[in-house]
């Protein structure tokens, strides 16, 4: 007969994994739909899937966010057929960088910034990582960094939009009975 405490921690783990699986599935769907939206510069996207990364960080922790970002990019790129192409690596570097920065800044600055601030920081990290990856792997020319202001300006806008989206989503999720027990 197992103790009550063990059962509770088991339940928590199952609940966490289920929630993360749901977030990964949602994020992959968003990633896939977003790939259909045309954009003047291939890597310049709204990154709405980051709302789900942000949600995972807010509901759980740093690792949850990293898991959702990584799996979303894997599954999403397999669906849209960009797996192992340049845009996959660019997206992967951006996704991981933003999950890292958002996770760490939520952990230490969560009380100072709302999810909007966290999301903006993540968008900046993502765009810088993307430009860095473009430079390191694809276009070895310093003129690539001329694009940085465009990316950063765009990141500011998408960061704010995604942050607001994250606030709404987390606000709604916290009201759901299934999530109430965790948060």
């Amino acid at each position, binding site marked *: 007969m197992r103790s009550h405490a063990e059962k509770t921690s088991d339940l928590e783990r199952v609940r966490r994994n289920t929630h993360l699986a749901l977030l990964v599935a949602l994020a992959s769907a968003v990633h896939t739909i977003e790939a259909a939206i045309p954009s003047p510069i291939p890597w310049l996207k709204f990154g709405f899937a980051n709302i789900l990364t942000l949600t995972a960080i807010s509901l759980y922790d740093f690792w949850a966010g990293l898991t959702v970002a990584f799996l979303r990019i894997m599954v999403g790129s397999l669906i849209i057929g960009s797996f192992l192409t340049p845009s996959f690596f660019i997206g992967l570097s951006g996704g991981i960088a933003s999950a890292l920065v958002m996770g760490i800044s939520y952990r230490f600055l969560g009380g100072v*910034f709302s999810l*909007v*601030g966290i999301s903006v*920081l993540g968008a900046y990290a993502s765009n810088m990582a993307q430009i860095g990856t473009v430079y390191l792997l694809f276009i070895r020319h310093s003129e690539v960094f001329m694009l940085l*202001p465009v990316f*950063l*300006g765009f990141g*500011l806008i998408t960061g704010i939009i995604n942050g607001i989206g994250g*606030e709404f989503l987390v606000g709604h999720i916290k009201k759901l009975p299934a999530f109430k027990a965790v948060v």
Partner: protein
Amino acid sequence: MLTISDKILIISLTILTLFSYSIASGGRQGDEIRIEADGKVIGTFSLRKDGLHEIKGVLGASRIEVKGGKTSFLSSPCKNKLCVHQGEINKSGQMAACLPNRVVVRVLGGDGDYDALTR
């Protein structure tokens, strides 16, 4: 929803972005020009020394002038004269080209200036 620190963060990042824009778009005065004709490098010439270069292209001779640290196409045997209308260029990385005559002028030098942005 936005906290005060959010607003401060957004405003300071906006300023940072505008600042980086002025760095990236400003460019640096180039040191020299490299002229290519039909894909082959004809030569590199200093931007500090005024001069006139006659470059034989596919259609005929393009005249490229260097004056006061800037360079421009004076004339070219092409139809639409886009190269001549482009006017003077002097920033590193800038380029003027007469595509029909296959003559390209690039401004070089001052490269490696963007390292500060990667930090």
